């Protein structure tokens, strides 16, 4: 991302954000509510055109080559929803076909097994808990084997068990399939346990980006990430 700005009328959601994430990283974008995290993901997933600046995902421009970007990404929005009258398989078949899979059934079984959700294919999504929906959300996002996965507040509303399962899934997707993962969160603990690099966003601008170890080394050894975060929250926007 280079000098990405997004404005909604007189309100500036992103103010010239510049960021580079290497392939294979698990990047966590931290920030308070309204800092611009979801706007950043919306730009990178082509849901929102930036007002200024350029952004490339997998080498494709998010505006000029939006369809190529869409082919190479997976996306899990916050509070993901599905068609309640449809079964897990029918939902995934629909999204799989939209992602270009001609016969997605085999892949659906494979992904659901990977997510430890096998045997649920023929159940309707209507009565599912938040945690179960989140797993189907991950399934629809990785069905077409994207190279970059965007997760918007993925642990929001999950119980501790669900959070742990999701954390394990993210780690496996990254290690087993080499997926680059971009994760939005306001939970410091999640970033510490899951990410290899982080960025801290405040009022639409990045105040810090570095690897996780680099970030912790920059500050005194007694500082927790929470201390680091609050120290960075007070520095001016770059």
């Amino acid at each position, binding site marked *: 991302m280079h000098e990405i700005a997004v404005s909604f009328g007189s309100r500036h959601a992103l103010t010239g954000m510049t960021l580079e994430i290497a392939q294979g990283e698990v990047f966590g974008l931290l920030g308070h509510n309204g800092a611009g995290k979801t706007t950043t993901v919306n730009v990178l*997933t082509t849901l929102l055109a930036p007002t200024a600046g350029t952004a490339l995902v997998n080498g494709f421009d998010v505006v000029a080559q939006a*369809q190529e970007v869409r*082919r190479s990404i997976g*996306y899990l929005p916050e509070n993901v929803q599905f*068609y309640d009258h*449809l079964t897990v398989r*029918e939902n995934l078949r*629909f999204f799989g076909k*939209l992602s270009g899979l001609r016969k997605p059934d085999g892949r659906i079984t494979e992904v659901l097994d990977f997510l430890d959700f096998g045997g649920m294919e023929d159940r309707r999504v209507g009565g599912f808990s938040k945690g179960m929906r989140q797993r189907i959300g991950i399934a629809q996002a990785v069905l077409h084997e994207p190279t970059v996965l965007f997760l918007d507040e993925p642990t929001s509303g999950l119980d501790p068990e669900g959070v742990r399962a999701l954390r394990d899934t993210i780690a496996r997707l990254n290690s087993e399939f080499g997926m680059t993962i971009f994760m939005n969160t306001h939970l410091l603990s999640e970033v510490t346990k899951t990410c290899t690099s982080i960025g801290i966003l405040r009022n639409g601008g990045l105040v810090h980006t570095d690897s996780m170890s680099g970030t912790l080394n920059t500050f005194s050894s007694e500082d927790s990430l929470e201390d680091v975060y609050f120290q960075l929250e007070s520095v001016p926007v770059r």
Partner: protein
Amino acid sequence: MTDVLTFSSKELLDLRRDPLLIILIGFLSVAVVISVLVGAADFRIQLDAYNQYAQQLANSGSGTPAAPPQLFPLQLLRGGVEYIEILGALFAVVLGYGTVAKEKHRGTLQLMLTRPIGRFAIAGGKLLGLSVVWLVVVAFLTVVSIITISTVGGASLTWHDLIRVVIAAMLAWVYLMFWSALAIALTVLSRQLSTGLIVGLVVWLVIVLILPQIGDTMDPDNQVPGGLFASLQIKKADELAVMAHFTWFDDIRNGIEVSSIEKHFERLTFGFLGIKEQYNQQPLAYIWGDLFPYAITLAVATLASAFFALVATTRRMLQRK
């Protein structure tokens, strides 16, 4: 095209299991069937009364019976056609609105829009899905109506009659698609979901109820039950002579009526089914020759409505808040 088929099959699956669709279609079916049943039962009573009278005459040997009453079974469909005109259009608006509103409300739009889908895939899929739904509903209502007329009414329908019923069914399908496509476009263009539905209902109210009602109220023949001229025992030729002095008035009245697409559908179906007296028992070519401008306007209006839905459904419009 593959994306359109993917969307339409999802839409069909989702609609098929939606309790709202089942309630709406069930209600429409019951209304149409009851109207045909009542007409058919009345038809049967008249037919039985005539047969009984003819039998009594034959038994007594007191002469040949008078000619049987002029009973036209296709005219029994009048109530059903009127329900489709009003209720069908209303339900078509609700279903068209629902297909877009559900996506916006549930948040499934985001999942779709991050996929490499074509420009017209979403609207095209929804239109195709709804067209299949309406085709099935209209076919079902047609078959049930034919069976009811034959069994309850005891009327025998000829192939000629069946062709007319099929034409009327096709017109109903086109008319319902006009409303569903319009509702899709209006919902997409509305920032708030409720606005889309309200605008759709206001358009329905004006086109289906207000304009035809103004036209009907202005018709001198509707001022007195049974018709003004008939109640004054004025002959048809004299009626026409009187009305010749008021052609400007009739032009205005007709102009108001034909500004409603509902009247185009009604005139066509009433013509082909012989519900309108001047077309009763007339050959199809004659009816077509007289009414084809209405068929063209109905087709053009529906195509325009579908085009409107296709053009309005852009990524930007769908994401507007």
